[in-house]
């Protein structure tokens, strides 16, 4: 576990550090499906925010809009301090690696697209690989790695630009329980030590409670926010937190909100 690195500011520091705001954002697909309707969401700096909801509630769409993939049909996306390429790291549900490139080249990609050659940024790529524990695998090809390792490569690639905001779209949904728990722990450690903001899309109540400082629960048809839960438990969180009574209470509360969301839909 990480040494007790200063936990990122929790609810206290929130009014000062607004990173991003979605103001009345709506999104209608060309086939007429309303994916999001009047979505208002404030993202604080350094928070770990989870978007939780059933399939089709627009949580992935919201994430893509924040990433700048695809247009919005109404409302606006507001970055108080401005935002630009490289400030955002994105982790997809699948590892989304280039099968023809080595682990090193896959992680190097975001920097290469900014015109930075291999030699120039070798250290940064190695550093990102070390963060996810894959320093010995830079010459491997994706097919030689397990599912969990591929996901780690994908995370290293998102980290290599030293982003302010990390967007994760159900990154561990396809992994087995044991790998998922391990990656959850590692992700939390990294988040604590690096001080990014994370927006994490998931449909797992347990995962969201364990990781987040705040959970936003969404409902489908049309995609909207139906509840918000502060997880006011201190970091670092570990196995002890998973066994604790507050954890269970938060899980129950989150679960109830989610059920209400699904009942409404």
């Amino acid at each position, binding site marked *: 576990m990480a040494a007790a690195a200063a936990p990122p500011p929790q609810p206290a520091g929130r009014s000062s550090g607004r990173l991003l705001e979605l103001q009345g954002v709506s999104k209608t697909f060309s086939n007429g499906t309303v994916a999001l309707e009047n979505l208002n969401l404030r993202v604080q700096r350094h928070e770990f925010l989870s978007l939780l909801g059933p399939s089709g509630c627009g949580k992935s769409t919201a994430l893509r809009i924040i990433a700048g*993939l695809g247009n919005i049909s109404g409302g606006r996306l507001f970055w108080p301090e401005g935002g630009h390429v*490289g400030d955002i790291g994105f982790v997809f549900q699948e590892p989304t690696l280039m099968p023809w490139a080595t682990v090193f080249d896959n992680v190097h990609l975001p920097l290469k697209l900014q015109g930075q050659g291999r030699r120039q940024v070798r250290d940064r790529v190695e550093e990102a690989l070390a963060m996810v524990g894959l320093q010995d695998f830079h010459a491997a090809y994706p097919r030689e790695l397990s599912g969990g390792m591929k996901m780690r490569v994908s995370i290293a690639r998102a980290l290599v630009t030293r982003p302010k905001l990390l967007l994760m779209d159900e990154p561990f949904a396809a992994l087995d329980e044991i790998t998922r728990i391990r990656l959850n722990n590692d992700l939390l450690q990294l988040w604590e030590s690096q001080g990014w903001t994370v927006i994490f899309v998931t449909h797992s109540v347990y995962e969201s409670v364990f990781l987040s400082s705040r959970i936003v629960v969404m409902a489908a048809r049309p995609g909207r926010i139906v509840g918000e839960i502060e997880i006011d438990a201190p970091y670092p969180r570990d196995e002890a937190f998973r066994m604790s009574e507050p954890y269970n209470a938060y899980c129950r509360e989150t679960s109830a909100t989610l059920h209400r969301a699904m009942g409404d839909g």
Partner: protein
Amino acid sequence: MSTMIEDDRIVGLQDEAIARAAEAAEKRDRVLRWAMPVSLIIAVLAVWEFGVWYHGTPHYILPGPWLVIKTLFTDWHTLYPSLLVTLQITFSALAIAIIGGVGLAVLFTLSKWVELSLFPFAVIAQVTPIIAVAPLILIYVDSTYAALLLCAWIVAFFPILSNTTLGLNSADHNLVNLFQLYGANRWQMLRYLRLPSAMPYFLGGLKIAGGLALIGAIVAEFAAGTAGTGSGLAYRILEASYRLNIPRMFASLILISLSGILIFFAFTLLSHLMLRKWHESALKREN
């Protein structure tokens, strides 16, 4: 039933013995893979040779395989230059087909309108039998060499164009999103994502196009006939048929087949070397 009995016996063996048995089976498999087709070919040739000898068939009707092989050596001074001419046309046409096919495929992905306007022409060129078009091409194109090249190019061009176009459009959508997210421009998207994605498709097209270029070259030579200045292998076949020199016809045929086989294997090898690190087609299944 028999497999069950066999299974029981294997279960009874020691681990080491099992490993050794598996190794032996693999070795036998490898030997048989070559031995079976080779011995079959030899058997067919032997029956042919025997039949010709037994019936006393004259060589201007059907020469035995031994005579064909002898002719290959005795007529080498005529056949070899012709082989070179045919191969030169084949590979020049193929080279132009690669440049043109890949270039046009890239243009197609850059502009939908270019694709919509030009693709019908490519299809027309592909579906019209080259043997029917060759005489016209020979009339309109002054240089016979250029006409032959054009014919071979027309047939070799399409598989490369259509395969590469398919490949360029087959890039993983999530990767396209990722590239977009990191602000990749069109050129970077092409260079780092679309071209590598298209590589297996292109190599598949190349394997087909290699054989087709040879066929195109031969067909065009036939259409040009003895009137042409070309002296490729097809011309040798025509010439030999007028003189009832059947052994030389067979010898020329063998050279054409061998060229086709070599081209195919060369591109298969190339494809394997380029994809072995990552593409499913070149990987061994691990179970």
